[in-house]
């Protein structure tokens, strides 16, 4: 007997669907799912905001795909066509760009909230790892998408960005050539970045995002560490559905408003078409989310421990990233079972480092 043949079924649309697909387990799951309610509950919403912004990017990205043409002779022209001739093309492109930046910001907030609330601890290590990979993919999305309009700033920023990799001894040059699809940033790089941006990264991101969301749903929201001392009866929860979902929706609407205001009042500039043979304009900088690394590399001395300062910097950033990724392995409770404050201080230092060096880079 299939589930459609027995049991009580409702009428209307729900009934029609339930006749064909058993919604009961999902409804059952959602109605019993609880979200901890405490002073840090606000941070839970940034995962949802990130998801919303990702959806916005997918939707606007698909619309941009209808007109965008990769290639050094068509990319800039097609984006210009989108923003000047296509109805609401300016809005779609501007929202796509703003959503990408707000997405990275939201992901950063989400990541640090998870870090400071120790939500990465057992049994949520896999959620942390998958989240970290999603962050890396978000960077890759940003880096590859930045080049696609083929404007001067994007061209030279990509050139600088890919050159940084080349300083790594041994593998640096081959990696750079793999990224650029040749010795220099060219139309081949553009088509490669395009392929990565619209096909490979979205596919990878969707799969890992699926795993990430599945883990969150099955494990539930992380309860604060301080609740270890709170008796079960005194812990407060909010139903996931409809309370949390509706609040999520409310925040999404606010974010949508912010996006619309940014897109209309501060439309994303297209700039001038890239001229590969022209001299690089002054003040070439990467996107703001890479700026702290770019700026920090400038402060490294020319030589350090017999190696190029830049190489040492990149290796150090690599090690720091790896340690951040592996935080569930090295973070531990204090012998007394209390919160390990060292980790919190490390996190604060990282946040301060990023803010200070980004500010220095912006100047």
């Amino acid at each position, binding site marked *: 007997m299939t589930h459609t043949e027995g049991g009580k079924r409702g009428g209307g649309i729900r009934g029609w669907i339930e006749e064909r697909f058993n919604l009961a387990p999902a409804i059952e799951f959602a109605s019993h799912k609880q979200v901890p309610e405490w002073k840090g509950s606000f941070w839970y919403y940034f995962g949802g905001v990130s998801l919303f912004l990702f959806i916005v990017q997918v939707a606007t990205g698909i619309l941009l795909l209808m007109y965008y043409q990769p290639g050094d002779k068509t990319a800039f022209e097609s984006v210009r066509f989108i923003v*000047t001739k296509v109805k609401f093309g300016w809005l779609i492109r501007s929202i796509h760009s703003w959503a990408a930046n707000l997405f990275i910001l939201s992901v950063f907030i989400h990541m640090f909230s998870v870090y400071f609330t120790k939500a990465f601890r057992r049994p949520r290590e896999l959620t942390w790892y998958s989240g970290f990979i999603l962050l890396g993919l978000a960077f890759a999305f940003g880096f590859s998408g930045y080049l696609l309009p083929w404007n001067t700033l994007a061209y030279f920023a990509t050139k600088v960005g890919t050159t940084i990799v080349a300083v790594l001894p041994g593998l640096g040059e081959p990696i750079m050539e793999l990224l650029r699809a040749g010795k220099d940033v060219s139309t081949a790089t553009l088509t490669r970045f395009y392929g990565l941006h619209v096909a490979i990264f979205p596919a990878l991101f969707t799969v890992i995002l699926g795993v990430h969301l599945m883990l969150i749903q099955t494990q539930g929201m992380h309860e604060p560490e301080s609740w270890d001392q709170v008796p079960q009866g005194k812990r407060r929860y909010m139903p996931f559905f409809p309370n949390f979902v*509706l609040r999520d929706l409310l925040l999404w609407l*606010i974010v949508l*408003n912010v996006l*619309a205001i940014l897109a*209309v009042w501060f439309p994303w500039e297209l700039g001038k078409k890239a001229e590969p043979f022209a001299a690089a304009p002054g003040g070439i900088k990467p996107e703001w989310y890479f700026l702290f690394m770019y700026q920090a590399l400038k402060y490294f001395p020319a030589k350090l421990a017999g190696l190029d300062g830049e190489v040492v910097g990149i290796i150090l950033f690599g090690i720091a990233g790896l340690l951040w990724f592996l935080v569930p392995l090295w973070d531990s409770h204090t012998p007394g079972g209390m919160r390990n404050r060292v980790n919190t201080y490390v996190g604060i230092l990282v946040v301060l480092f990023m803010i200070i060096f980004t500010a220095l880079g912006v100047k």
Partner: protein
Amino acid sequence: MACAAHPALAQSDSATAKPPAAATPPAAASTPTAPKPAVDQCYACHSEQETPAATTYKNDVHRTVGVTCAGCHGGDPTTDDQDAAMSKAKGFVGVPKKDQIPAMCGKCHGPGENAYKSRYKLDDAFGDFKESVHGHALAGNPKGPQCISCHGVHEIARVADARSPVHPTHVVETCAKCHSDAAYMRDFSPTLPVDQKEKYLTSVHGKRHAMGDPKVATCVSCHSNHRIFQAKDPRANVYPTNVPKTCAHCHGDAKYMAGYGIPTNQYSDYVQSVHGKALLVKTDLNAPACNSCHGNHGAAPPGVSSVIAVCGRCHQMNQELYERSAHRAVFEGKKLPGCVVCHGNHNVQPASDRIVSFEPQSPCARCHVNTPADKAAPDIRRLHLVLDSLSTGQTAALAVLDRAENLGMDVSDARYSLKDVNQSAVQARVSIHSFKVKEVEEAARPGIAIIAQARTAGQEAIHEYGFRRQGLAVSTLIVTFLVIMLWLKIRDIEKKQKEKGR
């Protein structure tokens, strides 16, 4: 061996046959600046023999200042022993090869310091020659020109001396010896014309030269004497960007030109002109220099009838239109010099749209009056209006586009299209030379249409800006309304949940 032709010298052979090497060092003996011996034995002997070299050397400027034969030919001028005097050990070189001559002259007329150089203020003619087109020609072909080609051999005179081949009255002939010889010139520069002298003789310079005017320009006045370069060489005085200054060297010098009855402000006018700025500021080598209009070797002011042809070499379309205009016959009838009447000659300014108007500076106002009696008055007013509508229309359209851009709108296409207005404006300005309203209107029409389109595009962009803001306001209001409704709904749900929980 003693000099057999001169007994006195022969008698002294025994005394001077083998002088001790230390007494008269060969190097010193073969230096032009070496102290002059009491008797220049080479010259004495050759004079006795009446050799052509000695005969002509008698009046040579070098001899008069004490340069002995050995000064150039080496050897020992103190001895009458032919073997000793012409001994290679004493630096005797005899008749030098042609391509060795510049270096030989350069011993005094070269870069180094010596007694003659400071005494007679000699310049580094050898160094200049080596760099020059003649020096390069000689380096590549021993038949090439060298010092004696122009200055002669043993009868060299000062430039100021009328006997000198390079004296202003002779220098044209001297240069023409080679430069009018097609067979000779073929070996060096087959494409270089050989009619410079013929043209020069037809020029104002050449005619005055033929009349014996010593101040008038000759070849060296423009090309210099030793530092001569090809006209395409930027170091040449006759390189396009150097030509105005070269001409102004004389024509800008009021004192020098006194007595000729011509103005000396051509250069100061020219540098302010559209031509001068193009050539000297933008270094556009296609822009005309003095010789472009006056000719170079055949330089003369263009006559009244030839002005149109001269300007028309570059401004072809203007010439064609003018030639079929009503003005041509009128100007020719009054012997007015065509283009120059409206545009001037040396101080030609970019033609502004005001050139066709009744404003005091306008050339039209010199002949026409803005009254009903003047039949041309309505056409002048109309032509001015058409030209003005292009420039003012473009400015107005740009202002609209600027406003749209300041609002953050992209109007780059419209801005780009405005560039074509310039093309239309140029065509309209050119067609002015037909002095026909219809033709000018026809030329201006595409530009006026582009201006209208660009203006519309700018206005639409400004309108679109307003629409976006309105759209944003509406969408923000809707979303905010939804947010409030949702918040109320959440509160309602939570209230009910609390009541249910109680």
